[in-house]
Structures are given as C-alpha cells and as structure tokens.
C-alpha cells in the first residue's frame, strides 16, 4: 500500500514535469513556477528520506498524502497553463499553501523535553476572572508545555494578593486569588508553576516606593534614580531591600507552595550601583569613594564588589527557600550569552552554578537569526561547563511561526534538553498552530525535575527509534543490534544509579559514592558516542543516523554532568574578571 502510494506520487510528478516542459500548454511563468514547485516537492521527499535516517517520528503518511495532492495540482496547473491563467495561478497559490501546511509537520515532537513559557505581566494583567484563567490554561495545555513561569511581581507590585508587597490593580479586582487558581488548574493538567519576580528591577512602579522604601532605590553614577531606560532599581546592597525581596519569595513558597521560583532582573542596570550605602561601604573597605575611582584596576574592583552582592543574594535565596520547601527549584532568567552581561550588569551567573546556588537557567537568548541562536546556546552551555542545566529563551516577538519552529529545531541539535518561549503576550495564533501541529504536538516529560529519570527515558527512546527505523539506518549487518544492546546496557546503568534526586539534593553535599557511579557511566557514554561517530565516518552506519545517536548521547551526558558536579567536594568560587 505504502509502495503503491509512492509509485502513484512519482508517476504524477513525472506527469507534472512532462506537462511543465511543454511550452504549448503553459506560458513561461506558469511553466517555471511548476518546475520550481516540483523541485520543492522533490526536496521535501529527499528531506523525508533523511528524516527516516535521523529516526525522526514524523507523520509520514500525512505528509505523503499532502505531497500527492500537491503533485496532482501541479499536473493540473501545468495542463491548464496559459489557456486559463487565472485558474493555473490559483492552483499554484493552493500549492503554496499546501507546502506551508507541510512545514510544521517536518519536525517531530520529542517525548523527553523541557518546554517552558514565560507568562508575562501583560498576560497576567489580562486574566481578570477564573474563566479567563481556565481558557488561558487550556491554551497552555494545548501546546504541551510542562512548566509555566508566572510573572508574580513586577513594577514594584505583586500580581497576587500579597501581604508584603503592593498589589496590582488587576489582581485587586480579580474575584479570588489568581495565582491560586492558576496553580490549581496547572496541577490538574500536570504543568509545573514557577513564579518569577523582578528581583531588583522596579521598572516604572516608583509609586509603590514613595515611602521608606525610597531609601532602597539604587542610583546612577550621575546620582539619579533612573538611567537612560527611565526604569528604577532597588540596590542589591541595601540590607532592607534584600529582606523585602526575600519576604516576597518566601511568601510565594510558603503560601502558594509553588514548584519553582525564578529570579529575573537579578542584576544591576548598566549605569547603577552607586547607592550611598554602597559608596560608604566600599570606601570603608577600600579607602576610596567609587565616584573618585580613576584607574581601571579600581573600576574592576568596584565591579567585582557590586557583583558579589548579587551573587550572595542568589545564594541566600536558593538555600533559604529550599529550606522551606526542599523540592523547590530555584532558577534565573539571565542575560545571554553569559559573557556579555557578566561584568556590565553584575550578573555572573556561571559562578552561581559553580557555587551550586541554582537549579537551572533560562538564558534570554533572543535573536532573530536561527544560526545565531544555536551558537548562543552552545556558547552558554560551554560557559556552564556541566555545572547545571540551561533552557534557552526564544524571543518569539522577533519572528514568525516558522522561524520559531526553526529555532526550536536548531536548539535541539545541541546538548540542551529543552527551551523556553518568551512570552505568552508575544505568541501569535500561528505560533500555537505550528507548535500543536508538530514540534510540541505530544506531551513531553521535563528534564529539570529528575534529570536521571529523563536520561533513562531518553536512552529508552533512542533504543526504540533504532528498532522502528532499522531499515533506514544504512547500518552494516548486526550493527543496529549491537547498538541496541549497548544502549540497553547504558540505560540499565542509568536506571540503577543510587543517587540523590536533583530537586531535593543538597547541591553542596559531596558524595564520593555518587561520583564513583556517575563518572564511569559518563565515560562509557562518551566512549560509545565516539564509536558511533567512527562508524558513521567509516560508512558502517548512515552519517545522519550516527549524528542522531551521538546527539542523543550528548543530551544524556549533559543531564548527568551536573549530578557529578554537585556530588564532588564543594569549593567556593569567587567572581573574577577576565
């Protein structure tokens, strides 16, 4: 049945090419376009063959059906040609649409993947009733996200009825407690809720600080409360300011029992850091008012001094909050790539990971360029050196649904195991359609909660793929079976790991036993990966298959590495300048 459909498709395609080549039937334009579209169909068929070698679970039958329809229409357009130009053109337009319909189907939905989305302040403002929340959560569930990052505190006020911070008007007029409703529905749908706070950024919400909190506001080098952006900040150095932020975080953990906390704006802004308290403190420690600094060495020293306060705040938040709720995950949305923001904004996030103060990061890798996005993800992964997990942020406001799909697909070609969309208010209806049609079509198990289990599932899935796609792997006789045996063996070792779970472990508590289990396992994974790469290079298996297997192994390794890092003896690392 499958073969006959293919033959039919090929026959129709040949007909289309035949008609397209007859100038008597079609004018130049239609002929040329039929020829171009025919080439596109041929290319898609080629991609489909490659997808099979890559062991991608696509809806091949549906795509073939669409391609068959396109081939019919191409033949029709070529036949009609200039005799009825309007009809031919309209047929070609239909074909364009059909080709667009295929695009979302060309990426698979992975069974193990972290899929987050930032629920921004605009969205939070617009959820004015429980019915709104229910509709919104339906939309979220429809794209199979597994965690939502809810904006709980921005512009100096909370989006929930807070006892410690001012409350946004839209929260006040909500009948009940919006955040509680979100959490309740999310639990029913199996979606984790991580609440985000604008840690030190006040934005334009200065009206909530026109009391004793005014003294917490940070200042610029020009001694102003706002810089070029017009936004206000509180100083990470002022003890009362830090206590205030901590009290908001604790309220979210204790009163709401959220699954995670995400620190946003956990940094300075470019021109800030000159609060009187900071200047006095710096002067008492280093004998110079930061305003009087002239030499680069002193400037660097002041930068490090400022950065340490952010570092310490993250550290404190992580440990104090975990004490309240041991399985709480504490993450941060950070400037990306890491190296750009480290010094300028006092956001040395690699050091937080090295010091084991963080559960994962969502770096804000917003760029319109697909390749650039991929390179940023690789660079940030490299900066982490296996100390923690990153789930890069996709700036969907920068591009259309197809670029979004391409960026997700590009991110998947690295060792990261998930990505985060920024943000709900920026999502267009077409974005939802593309996610639902293909790349996030099915639910996925997240990797941030239990990376060991995720690694086991990934290996199990890889083994299944090898079985499913065996005829397309271009593997030498017996090679696929040997891969299967090895993968099953590695999967068994991951399953047998006697290690503490990621979400509840004390990241600074060493465990030589865990290191002794994990290091040889990672070495075996790397060794197997090297072997597969060698097989691909020598033609014993298709290069595409080899690439896919090594990619999956790299993801498994990236999931296990932070488990090793946090089982080794803890050594405190300071912020240092390059």
């Amino acid at each position, binding site marked *: 049945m499958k073969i006959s459909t293919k033959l039919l498709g090929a026959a129709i395609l040949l007909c289309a090419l035949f008609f397209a080549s007859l100038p008597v039937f079609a004018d130049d334009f*239609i002929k040329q376009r039929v020829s171009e579209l025919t080439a596109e169909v041929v290319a898609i068929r080629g991609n489909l063959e490659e997808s099979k070698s890559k062991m991608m679970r696509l809806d091949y039958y549906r795509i073939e059906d669409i391609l068959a329809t396109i081939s019919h229409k191409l033949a029709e357009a070529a036949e009609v040609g200039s005799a009825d130009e309007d009809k031919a053109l309209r047929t*070609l*337009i239909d074909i*364009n649409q059909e080709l667009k319909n295929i695009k979302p189907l060309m990426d698979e939905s992975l069974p193990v993947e972290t899929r987050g989305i930032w629920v921004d302040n605009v969205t939070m403002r617009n959820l004015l009733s429980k019915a709104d929340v229910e509709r919104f959560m339906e939309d979220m569930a429809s794209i199979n996200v597994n965690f939502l990052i809810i904006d709980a505190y921005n512009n100096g006020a909370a989006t929930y009825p807070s006892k410690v911070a001012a409350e946004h008007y839209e929260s006040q007029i909500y009948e009940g407690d919006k955040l509680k409703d979100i959490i309740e529905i999310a639990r029913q749908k199996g979606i984790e809720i991580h609440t985000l706070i604008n840690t030190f950024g006040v934005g334009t919400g200065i009206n909530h600080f026109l009391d004793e909190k005014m003294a917490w506001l940070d200042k610029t080098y020009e001694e102003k409360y706002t810089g070029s952006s017009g936004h206000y900040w509180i100083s990470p150095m002022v003890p009362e300011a830090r206590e205030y932020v901590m009290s908001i975080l604790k309220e979210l953990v204790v009163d709401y029992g959220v699954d995670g906390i995400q620190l946003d704006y956990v940094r300075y802004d470019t021109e800030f850091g000159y609060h009187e308290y900071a200047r006095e403190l710096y002067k008492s420690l280093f004998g110079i008012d930061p305003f009087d600094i002239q030499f680069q060495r002193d400037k660097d020293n002041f930068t490090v001094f400022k950065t340490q306060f952010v570092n310490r705040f993250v550290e404190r938040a992580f440990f104090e909050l975990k004490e309240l709720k041991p399985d709480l995950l504490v993450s941060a949305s950070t400037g990306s790539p890491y190296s750009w923001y480290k010094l300028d904004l006092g956001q040395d996030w690699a050091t937080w990971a090295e010091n084991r103060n963080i559960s994962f990061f969502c770096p804000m890798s917003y760029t319109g360029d697909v390749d650039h996005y991929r390179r940023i993800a690789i660079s940030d992964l490299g900066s982490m050196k296996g100390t923690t997990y990153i789930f890069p942020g996709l700036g969907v406001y920068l591009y259309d649904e197809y670029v979004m799909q391409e960026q997700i697909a590009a991110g998947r070609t690295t060792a990261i195991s998930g990505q985060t969309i920024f943000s709900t208010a920026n999502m267009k209806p077409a974005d939802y359609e593309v996610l639902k049609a293909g790349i996030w079509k099915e639910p996925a198990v997240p990797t941030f909660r239990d990376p060991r289990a995720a690694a086991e599932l990934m290996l199990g899935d890889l083994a299944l793929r090898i079985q499913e796609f065996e005829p397309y792997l271009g593997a030498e006789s017996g090679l696929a079976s040997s891969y299967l045996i090895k993968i099953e063996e590695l999967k068994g070792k991951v399953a047998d790991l006697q290690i503490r779970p990621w979400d509840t472990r004390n990241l600074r508590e060493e465990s030589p036993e865990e290191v002794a289990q994990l290091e040889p396992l990672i070495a075996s994974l790397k060794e197997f990966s090297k072997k597969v790469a060698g097989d691909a290079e020598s033609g014993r298996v298709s290069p595409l298959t080899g690439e896919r297997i090594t990619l999956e192994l790299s993801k498994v390794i990236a999931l296990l590495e932070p488990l090793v890092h946090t089982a080794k003896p803890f050594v405190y690392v300071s912020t240092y300048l390059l």
Partner: protein
Amino acid sequence: MNTKKLLLVFAVTCLVAGLAFAEKLVVWTWYGAELGQVFQELVKTDFTAKTGIEVEIEVVPIDGIMNKLLLSFIGGDAPDIVELYSNQVVELGIRGALLNLSEFADVKSVTDQLNPMLLPALQYKSALFALPGEINWTWTYYRTDVFSEMGLEVPETWDDIRALALKLKARNMDTYYYYQGDGEIVGKYLPFVFQRGADIYKPDGTASNLDSPEAVAAFKELTDLHKQYHLPVEDPIWGTFASAETPLQILQNWYYAGFELTNPQISGKWDITLFPGTKRADGSIDRTNTGKMLTWSIVSSTKHKDAAWELMKWLGSTEFTTKFMQTSNQIHGNRIFFSNKDSIDFAPFPEEKLHLAKEALATCRMQTAVVGGHIANRYIDFAFNKVVIQGDDPETAIRQAAKESTDEIQRKLREFDRYIKTL
C-alpha cells in the same frame, strides 16, 4: 534740552512703546527637537523680521491636542494658531473653536494655490477652518528587480494589481495595500469610491451614501482584494519589501524616505509609480487616491486676527515650505511635501520623479468632512472585518454600515445643531 536730544528721547519712547504693543502670536505646533528649531528660526528670520509680528512657538504633542485645545479655549489661554490633523479640523470648527477663514478677503488667492480636492476635509458648508500644510498621499512601490526577473509590467490599474497579486502569490510573494493612520480601512476604501465618481456621504452631508451602487461596488472591490486575490491584511512592510517577500506595496508617500533610510541594501532595486486607477469609459484612467494633511488653523478666541492670517499665509507660502522641506531633508533625510502646488517643484525629491509627485498631489482627494463622519468610519471597519475575517456577504455588510453611519451622523447633527446654525 536741545532739539537733537528731544528727538532721541522721542525715538526711544516710540521704540519702547512699539515693542510693548507689538503683536505677539502664540502658535502650537508638534514640530519639536531639531525640526522645531528650524521652524523657530525660519519664523524669526523670514516672518518676524519682515512683518514685525512676534511669534511664540510652543511644542505640543499632536496626540490629545483636541482635548488640550478645547480645555485651553474654555480656560481663555488658547493659542492664536494651532497645528492639527486634517480630520480634527471640522469637529473643532463647528464647535466654534476655530475661525472661519472665509472671512478674510484674500482667502481665494491662497486656496487657488491648492488642489481643490483637499479642501472638503477642512470645510463645512461655506466655512473653511484651516489651511493645509504637510500632506501625505498614496502611491505604489515596487521592486524593479523582481518585476524584471518575472517579466512583470508596472501596474496602472486595479485590474493590473489583481493580475500581479495572483502572479506574485503563485511565487509565494505578497502584494500589500495599506493606509497608515486613523481610519485605516476607510483610507483604503475611499479611492475605490472616488474612482467611481462618488462619495461615502450624501452631498448635503446629512446621511451616509455607503448604500449607493457605486459605494457597494467599491466595497466589494476592496474586500475582494483580500478574499479573492490573497492580499494580506497585515504586513511588516519594511522587512518584507527589503526581502522581496512583498515586492509590491501601495502606501503613503512618506515611506519613500523610510525605505531609503531603513533598506539601503535594496537601493536601486525599487521604484514608485502612481496609485492604481480605474479605467473610465473614454479609456483614460482615474487615479484618485487619498491621504491626510497637517493643517494650520486660527483659534477663534485670538485677539490678533490679521497678524495670525499673515502668519497662516506665510506658512502656506512657497518660500516657507521650500526652506522647511529642504532643511528637514538635510537633518533627517525625510522627504516631506506640502499641499501648495508650486512647492512641489522645490521638494527634496529625485527630479526625475517629481512629475509623479505632482500628479499624485493633483489626484489626491481628502475624505469629506461631515458632522459625525469620523465616528461613523468605524462602521466601515466593522463591515470590512465582517467580510474579510468572518466571511460575511459584502453587500449586506456595507448596507448595514450605511444605516448605522446615517444614524450616527444624524445623532451628531442634532447634538451640534446649535453650532451649525451659526455657520
């Protein structure tokens, strides 16, 4: 005291008195920053220096200017001259806030320099409430490289646009038609009505004319562009013109400088032509387009009527407009145009294309101002959305809009009756 000293004292006294009683006009304009400085400088050196009339210029953002003007008018501290968008003028005029410029004996010598199709936006009955300044019209931008590669002809008519839209779409490219500003849909719709020799209001301005055969056919033609010929309702414009995803775009004239500034990479790969037209029975093409204007009005509370009129005339003069257009081009690279027909010759625009600008201005017809008209515009938006988004029948939708518009206009006529009677 000798005679010489007496004369000197007399002269100084006259000068001081003259300065104390010299007329001083207050002008509200939205020209700020560098452009505002240019404006101030020109007023000082070319107007005040010659007429002795002092001018104080206040920069007021154009958004919310209607409310601000009404409040200051009631409070007794309104300016003498105010810069407004053309669609704000009649609403303020019939409320008595603006002076009827027809009172001035030489008004005709000023309006004679203008394309008469611009004035219906600024008039109500026989009253003229503003003189036009900067103007936008609509014309066509196309990528010459794409047209050449595909062997396409430059469009003259809407028939050409429809044929091109299909050909481009067959190559996965779009054709975009957009009118930027308040009343986006009305701005797109009006030319189809005008090219049929009709208007969207009855001639006496007391009812909608949207149910006339011409207006119904025009509405079908507009909505068909989207429904049958696949024109997108939205397009990012800048990027898609640069990438040639949308190589044919019908837009206002200010996009010209925008494309030059934002898309230098396609320099030499695009051109303009006039707005698409409709063939008349005699074979000629009606290329009436529409646009909007910035205008100058005298606030009716002014105590310096004649001085204000002098400044109004100067603001519309070729002398001022030429210098302002050219300086603005030097500072920002933009290419603004003024409504004064003669000023086009001096516009900072490629000389070989000036004939297009002249013809575009000559065929630019503004939306007629009727009481309640701009509020009624929203019924055209509703009708458009019903057809293009919800798939309703265009004739039913526009006839419904006609009824609702007439109701709106008549409601507003009753509301403003006491003002209208005084005109």
